[in-house]
């Protein structure tokens, strides 16, 4: 009995599993579904979970990936307001907002990408035509209008796709901004000229700075030396004046005697080793040697 009961249960489980598989479908988080009966939509599922449907071929659950998708447009050449050719490669983040409309109008995300490409390119050409190139690249922050242009494109695209395809455009960005090959040549030429100018300026600055420092140095050292000479001369002069004062003070005690000693000194200085001295013997010192009475005169 029990054995049979177990068999029944096992049998029911298998049958249940098969029915479950045939009569239900799962919608994962981030996905949506449109249930079609003989190709005609009958139910739209926007929340994740387990849902029932009639088995194929009566009903079919068409799962739509509602997560955001990143799509890159083709590189398209376009003109700015100031007639400059630019090539913008942009990305767009979009997701399915209205699964039924999306399912009926496009069906698959890949088909949607190619639809979007044309729409974005048009919006891009329109938006860029309203601005100069300086709205995209400029060192002046007031000129830059990248965010506005992106918003402009997003709004345009959104307007076009939201009602028609049930798509929500979440973000637009320029991931590459290039110039046509022909124009890049001129950019390079300009870059070269600018660099040459810089190099020349640095070289000239180097010369100028160096010679400035050198001449300043020379001036400074000359000044130091002149000052030193002047100071030394002052010191020497003052010392000489002081010495003269000292001498004068001493000599003023007996000026006559000073003259005498001074003449003796001069005598010493005048007579060198080339001088011939001629002396009379009756003159000093010989007169004393000759006289019988020394110091007779005294």
């Amino acid at each position, binding site marked *: 009995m029990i054995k049979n009961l177990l*068999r029944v249960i096992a049998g029911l489980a298998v049958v249940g599993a098969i029915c479950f598989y045939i009569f239900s479908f799962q919608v*994962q988080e981030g996905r949506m579904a449109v249930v079609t009966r003989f190709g005609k939509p009958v139910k739209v599922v926007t929340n994740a979970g387990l849902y029932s449907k009639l088995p194929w071929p009566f009903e079919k659950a068409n799962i739509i990936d509602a997560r955001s998708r990143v799509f890159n447009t083709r590189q398209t050449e376009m003109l700015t307001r100031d007639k400059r050719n630019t090539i913008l490669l942009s990305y767009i983040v979009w997701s399915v907002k209205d699964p039924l409309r999306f399912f009926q109008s496009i069906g698959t995300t890949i088909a949607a990408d190619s639809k979007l490409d044309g729409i974005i390119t048009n919006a891009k050409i329109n938006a860029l035509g309203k601005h100069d190139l300086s709205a995209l*690249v400029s060192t002046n922050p007031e000129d830059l209008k990248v965010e506005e242009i992106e918003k402009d494109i997003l709004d345009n695209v959104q307007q076009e796709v939201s009602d028609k395809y049930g798509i929500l455009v979440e973000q637009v960005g320029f991931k590459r901004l290039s110039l046509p090959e022909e124009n890049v*040549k001129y950019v390079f030429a300009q*870059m070269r000229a*600018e*660099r040459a100018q810089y190099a020349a300026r640095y070289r000239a600055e*180097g010369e100028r700075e160096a010679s400035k420092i050198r001449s300043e140095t020379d001036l400074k050292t000359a000044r130091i030396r002149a000052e030193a000479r002047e100071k030394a001369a002052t010191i020497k002069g003052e010392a000489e004046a002081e010495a003269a004062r000292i001498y004068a003070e001493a000599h003023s005690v007996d000026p006559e005697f000073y003259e005498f000693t001074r003449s*003796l000194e001069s005598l010493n200085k005048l007579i060198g080793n080339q001088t011939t001295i*001629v002396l009379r013997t009756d003159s000093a010192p010989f007169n004393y040697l000759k006289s019988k009475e020394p110091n007779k005169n005294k």
Partner: protein
Amino acid sequence: MIEEKQNKAEASFSRPLLESLDTGFKFLRWIVLVLVAVYCFSNTTVIKSDEVAIVLRFGKPAGASPAEHIKQPGLLFAFPRPIDNIIRVKIKRIYEMEIQDLRYNAQQLEGEARSLAELDYNTGSIDPEREGYCLTGDSNVVQPFITIKYQITDPVAYSFRQQEPENLLRDVIMASMVRTVGEMSVDDVLTEGKKQLTTAVLTRAQARLDQVNSGIVIQAVELNEIVPPRHVMQDFKNVQNAFIDRETKIKESNSYMEEEIPRAEAEREAMLREADAYAADLLATARGEAGAFREIVTEYKDSPRVVRERLYREAIEGSIGWSGRAAIIPVPAGGKYSDRYDQLRIAIPGE
């Protein structure tokens, strides 16, 4: 259903065959039981320490609140497959992404593409279809090579809000790079502005990621390289050399200054010392001589004649001593010199 079939079969088959079939079925029953058990626990798993998991029950994250959707590391019990589906997200891991799309990458260009790249080197331009770059605010071309470090911070958003989160990340980084370089000058971008550049790129890219709820947080934007295109590289190097030249020249003249000024100062010191020494010497001599003179004057006042004569004789002796020649003319026979010798007579002063 199976029961009925078996009964029908029993009636038409011979007994030994039925017996062996019966044992076979018994054996099969055990296998089925084991298989069922294995199936029941097939989704029970261990969540590793660097990851978390989300259990999708019939496609919906299991758990009452968003916080409960995330299953922390440890043993995880989940129903087998069509019921539960486990998604693992490594939230602790720092992922890295290199962005080569805005640079010239010779390794990536193979065969024909490489020769084409050489060709456009010769034509002196860049075909935007083949090679990316950024335009600076002052219309120069630069080519950055970036590495991004990022982390998944919101596993639910990361798994269920984006189809291709990595492509999104790449694109927002490139857009932020193009945008930020476009507002800077080439000199800033290539030199002092690099830090400012990466910071701005990170801020802008993160804002874009957050706007679409990506669940990704950028940890770092690293600028591996940012260079002018190969066509004009030499010109940039020349500027660098000129800059170095300038620095060298200035350094040289600075060291000239640092040598010359101390030298002049040393000379000044020497000159002043020499002057001081001269002055000191002069004054010492003066004081000495003045002192000596005073002494001799005192002596002279006591006995003028003796001192006078002594001094005079000393002077004469000294003079004769170092003179070249001394001629001594004796007194002629008459005891009187002729007049022409009068001038030779040295009078003793005071005599």
